[in-house]
């Protein structure tokens, strides 16, 4: 039975690749997407960064993000081998709005999304929230605890974001592997609940 992988195109091969599944890591500029991917990925995140002083100067506003010198202009991603026949990919969305047209590539077929929020700059995550709501992709809003602190309490953040009560709102630490793992598990829970609901309808 060919359940894990559907069509194979081309000639014969020796080794069957794992079934790839993916999660999207989204959020505004400088919220910690690359850090999040790097904390849990088993490979160093494959990242494309351009120096702020050349490509992105005047476009990205790094003044609000002390110490941030570069920004991701293409996607960055990592992976986690779940078992020998299943591999989870984590794709970080490009940090700028002008790359928004690439999001479909990342989001179509994804399990769900983690929308990372910097509580000092909530509006940065509006495009991501809008996008996933429209797509109907399960997502979780995760407030990154920069330096252990969150600027507003969660109810205020939920109010400001105007996300549905059903959308989980959590805090996590992008630098901490287990914290990232737990955040991803919340996304998986959402996706599982949705998949089970769809299954019952059938």
């Amino acid at each position, binding site marked *: 039975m060919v359940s894990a992988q559907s069509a194979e195109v081309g*000639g014969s091969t020796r*080794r069957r690749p794992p*079934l790839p599944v993916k999660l999207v890591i989204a959020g505004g500029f400088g919220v910690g997407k690359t850090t999040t991917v790097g904390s849990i990925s088993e490979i160093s995140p494959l990242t*494309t960064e351009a120096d702020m002083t050349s490509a992105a100067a005047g*476009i990205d506003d790094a003044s609000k993000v002390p110490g941030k010198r570069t920004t991701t202009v293409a*996607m960055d991603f990592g992976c986690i081998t779940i078992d020998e026949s299943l591999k989870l*990919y984590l794709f970080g969305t490009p940090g700028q709005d002008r790359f928004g047209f690439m999001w479909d*590539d990342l989001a179509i077929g994804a399990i769900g999304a983690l929308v990372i929020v910097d509580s000092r700059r909530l509006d940065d995550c509006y495009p991501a929230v809008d996008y996933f709501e429209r797509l109907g992709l399960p997502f979780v809003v995760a407030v990154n605890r920069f330096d252990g602190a969150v600027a507003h309490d969660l109810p205020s953040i939920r109010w400001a974001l105007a996300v549905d009560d059903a959308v989980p709102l959590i805090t996590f630490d992008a630098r901490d592997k287990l914290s990232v793992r737990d955040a991803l598990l919340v996304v*998986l829970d959402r996706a599982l609940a949705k998949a089970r609901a769809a299954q019952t309808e059938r």
Partner: protein
Amino acid sequence: MTRDKTPTERTAGALVRPFLSGDGAGGVDGAHGTDDRADAPVPDGALRPFLLTAGRVAGQDSIAIETQVVTTDTGRTAVDQLGFERRDIVSLCGNPLSVAEIAAQLSLHLGVVRVLVGDLSADGHLSVYLPNADASTDVDTLLRVIRGLRAIG
């Protein structure tokens, strides 16, 4: 996918490398690419990435970024007869790799890789395993992912 490597890191075929003169060579062309595959800015003066594909940008829509690619026996035999990027891809995929990883490791534009992988697959040099579209909503698959994540300690 492409902007982090300097031209000097690549030798063969460097003349047609995308974003070749990218060291601050001017404005980012935000309006570049009316098709949704052209997902990176092109600095002024750089050769266009899709030169590598004879201008084709369509590729196979079915090839997603996480699509797994493996070199076939045919590909292994023919690798020396292939041109620069095609040879790089066929050499790289002895073990399964995703399209995204190929693009990152070879510093190639994702859209370019999609087209080239489609070609190489049509020629029998690569096997392309199209992702099961239902995997992300399959309860058993999701449970496996959850178990796998919980095992991370």
